[in-house]
């Protein structure tokens, strides 16, 4: 199923002026007869902020499923359409919708709902403050969604893990003309290579050693080039296989400028083997080998900044990305793939671990978003030709505690530890700000 346009509402920009409702009334008024607006703005008395009641054009609309007359149906354009000829005015749909998206209009004598004005919603046009936008938020998903999923169904990742999302979307885009290396860890652990003759994906795939991913891909890419074939050499590796025991081969291949696309899925520890500490585990975190006790309060060192280390290799492309910001991730994947045809491309993805970090499985994307919004994980990209650029504004971050409090692995932190982390996060953001300002690029690094 493709994503379709929707009317998005930004409460922070709404001042309750009501122009949207007026515009809708006018648009829906037939020959001057009164009509009821299909959008209503509603004030939340507790917070003072505004919300909207309007049809969400749900993917699986409850209004349609409860309708006994088949008068409501989701169309190919994404709009839930109302059929006047079938409607019996029973109003069951109004009870079925939890968003107030369909309501009885006394003026018109039947239920009414938003139809997006055939692709030109008048409410959006009337909104001066930009609180309403007509967007296809997932237009990239549409493009990716049409590509073949090259992994088998039923990969055995933990509930709520975002790694499977990363794997599937990355490989869809990168395509079948690829050799995929998945060093030991969660990614082959969920079956991407396979078990006992049952394969995990449709592209040639292998377990390198935990230590030699970039080296094996060196030989693969170079031999294909020798044969005149342009085959993508792709790694989907964890932070241990990339930055700890695998770092020598990663560093060597980056220094040599091997044409490899190396994706590091960083869950900040050895999560596949039961959540032990790695060089990417952050300060204060509980892990199975940095436990909490009378004499210990989690990891006592900072994480190494692996993407920055890779930048200083003068790679063709280095970027950090998050599954809470998919368009940014897609754009960086695109850039990394392109760069890997010229030299070493390194893409670092923050991957919250539901089981190892101790948070509910439904919260993965929320955790990933908070990491970015607090500057705990800063999104940036480096191109050899243009230097380092911040991917989003980092000047007004939320306090880091907003992120820390989501995670069981930080549940033991005392005030001093939180302050320590906040100071580190601020310092790291400042370093990146200055690198971006300095235009740290080919001259400085390469």
């Amino acid at each position: 199923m493709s994503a379709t346009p929707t009317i998005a509402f930004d409460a922070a920009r709404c001042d309750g002026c009501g122009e949207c409702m007026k515009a809708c009334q006018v648009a829906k008024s037939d020959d001057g007869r009164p009509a009821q607006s299909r959008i209503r703005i509603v004030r939340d008395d507790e917070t003072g902020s505004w919300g909207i009641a309007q049809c969400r054009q749900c993917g699986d609309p409850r209004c349609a499923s409860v309708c006994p007359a088949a008068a409501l149906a989701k169309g190919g354009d994404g709009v839930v359409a109302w059929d006047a000829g079938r409607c019996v005015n029973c109003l069951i749909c109004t009870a079925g919708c939890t968003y107030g998206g369909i309501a009885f209009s006394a003026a018109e004598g039947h239920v009414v709902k938003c139809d997006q004005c055939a692709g030109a919603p008048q409410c959006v046009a009337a909104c001066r403050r930009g609180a309403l936008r007509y967007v296809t938020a997932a237009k990239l998903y549409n493009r990716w969604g049409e590509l073949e999923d090259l992994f088998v169904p039923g990969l055995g990742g933990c509930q709520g893990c975002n790694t499977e999302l990363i794997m599937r979307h990355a490989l869809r885009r990168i395509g079948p003309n690829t050799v995929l290396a998945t060093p030991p860890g969660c990614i082959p652990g969920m079956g991407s290579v396979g078990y006992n003759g049952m394969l995990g994906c449709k592209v040639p795939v292998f377990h390198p050693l935990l230590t030699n991913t970039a080296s094996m891909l060196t030989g693969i890419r170079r031999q294909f080039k020798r044969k005149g074939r342009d085959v993508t050499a792709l790694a989907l590796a964890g932070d241990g296989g990339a930055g700890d025991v695998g770092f020598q081969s990663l560093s060597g291949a980056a220094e040599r400028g091997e044409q490899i696309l190396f994706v590091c899925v960083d869950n900040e520890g050895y999560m596949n083997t039961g959540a032990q500490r790695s060089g990417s585990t952050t300060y204060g975190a509980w892990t199975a080998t940095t436990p909490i006790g009378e004499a210990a309060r989690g990891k006592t060192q900072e994480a190494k900044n692996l993407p920055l280390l890779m930048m200083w290799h003068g790679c063709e492309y280095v970027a950090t990305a998050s599954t809470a910001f998919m368009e940014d991730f897609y754009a960086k994947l695109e850039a990394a793939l392109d760069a890997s045809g010229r030299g070493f491309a390194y893409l670092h993805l923050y991957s919250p671990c539901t089981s190892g970090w101790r948070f509910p499985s439904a919260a993965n994307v929320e955790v990933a978003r908070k990491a970015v919004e607090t500057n705990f994980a800063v999104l940036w990209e480096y191109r050899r030709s243009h230097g380092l650029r911040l991917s989003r504004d980092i000047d007004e971050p939320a306090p880091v505690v907003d992120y820390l409090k989501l995670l069981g692995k930080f549940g033991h932190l005392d005030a001093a530890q939180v302050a320590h982390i906040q100071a580190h996060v601020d310092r790291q953001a400042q370093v990146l700000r200055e690198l971006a300002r300095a235009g740290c690029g080919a001259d400085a690094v390469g």
Partner: protein
Amino acid sequence: MSEVVDGTASAADAVAAKKEPKILVCDGNEAAAWGVVLARPDMVAVYPITPQSSLAEYVAQFVADGVLDAELVEAEGEHSVLSVLHGAALVGARTYTASCGQGLAFMFEPYFRTPNLRLPIVMSIVNRDGITPQCVWGGQQDAMTVREVGWIQLFCETVQEVLDTVVMAYRIAEDRSVMLPVNVNHDGNYLSNGVVRIELPDQAEVDDFLGTPDVNWHVALDPERPMGVDPLTGGATGPGPALFVGYRRGHCEGMQNALRAIVEIHEEWARRFGRRYAPLVEEYRLDDADCALVTIGSMAGAAKDAVDAAREAGVPVGLIRIKTLRPFPLDAMVAALDKARAVGVVDRAVSYGWNSGPVHQETLAALHYCQRRIPCLSLIGGLAGADLTQAHFARAIAETVKLLDAPCPRTPVWLNAED
């Protein structure tokens, strides 16, 4: 009697007679590098280590000069060297590297995996003793320590044999009944740096001898032939232990097939190029011998001189040189040992827990299959580049002769203990 024809073309060799061989004056490292040139690998990955370094340099220079058309990967360490070759071989490349000593130790993780992936990679080991004590000199502790890993292990006596064996190694490795990596061992210092006159085989004839690379027909990483390489195997949820056993058993069978391949390929080499080497076990003046020395590698030269001298003095002694240590040439070794009544084994490495040498242990195992009980003495020498001279072997012979009349000591004779 020795099967060696002393480097000269036999009269029956019509092919070699066609062209005047090119003559080189070089050491064993350069000879190995020329062997690499002749084998035309697609990819060479190297990392320098004494006493292999000049070999890596020669290969790099040959690539720079256009003498060798190969991808050269100057990896950041031996671990990556072999890993690069794993990747390349899985894409079908004929590959080469060389290492030794600590480099081999550092390489161990991918080294361990190479034969299990059945990749026909050829690697020279310029044998070096292990640290500690700190040492950069020759010795065979490196190769002896990895006997059970599953590589084919060949040991050369001469510089010419180094070149010839590097080329032959590709035929052995890529034989479809074998499909295993081959280590061509040549002793650090003695062979790596000893300069002699050798013949360089003709490229076109070597091309004809080796054929095109046949590397990844059985396992490949290629979008045109997509497959999963090395998925998790074994464990309770799979098809059962039989699959894993099948891999191990197949590897063992490949090793046994290699015995035949090594013999046939050495025979073909002799026919085409006129130089005949004992492929598995060389017997030297053994037919009417009371005693025999067992040797391996370059030490056999001085040992043969000592045997000749002892013979002149009326001592009926012969020599066994192991060329192929893995697969262990059991039948050839038993046949040779059966000709002696007492055996002395000279090792350039130590088997600590046995208080003897590794080749001594190998020989003891073979003696189990001999017709009678033969006493077998361990002699250890040549550690860390120590000389093993004719005088040392004269002593080794004398110690072995004693076994004819006295019980065999269960402790080794340390040949350089007084040097």
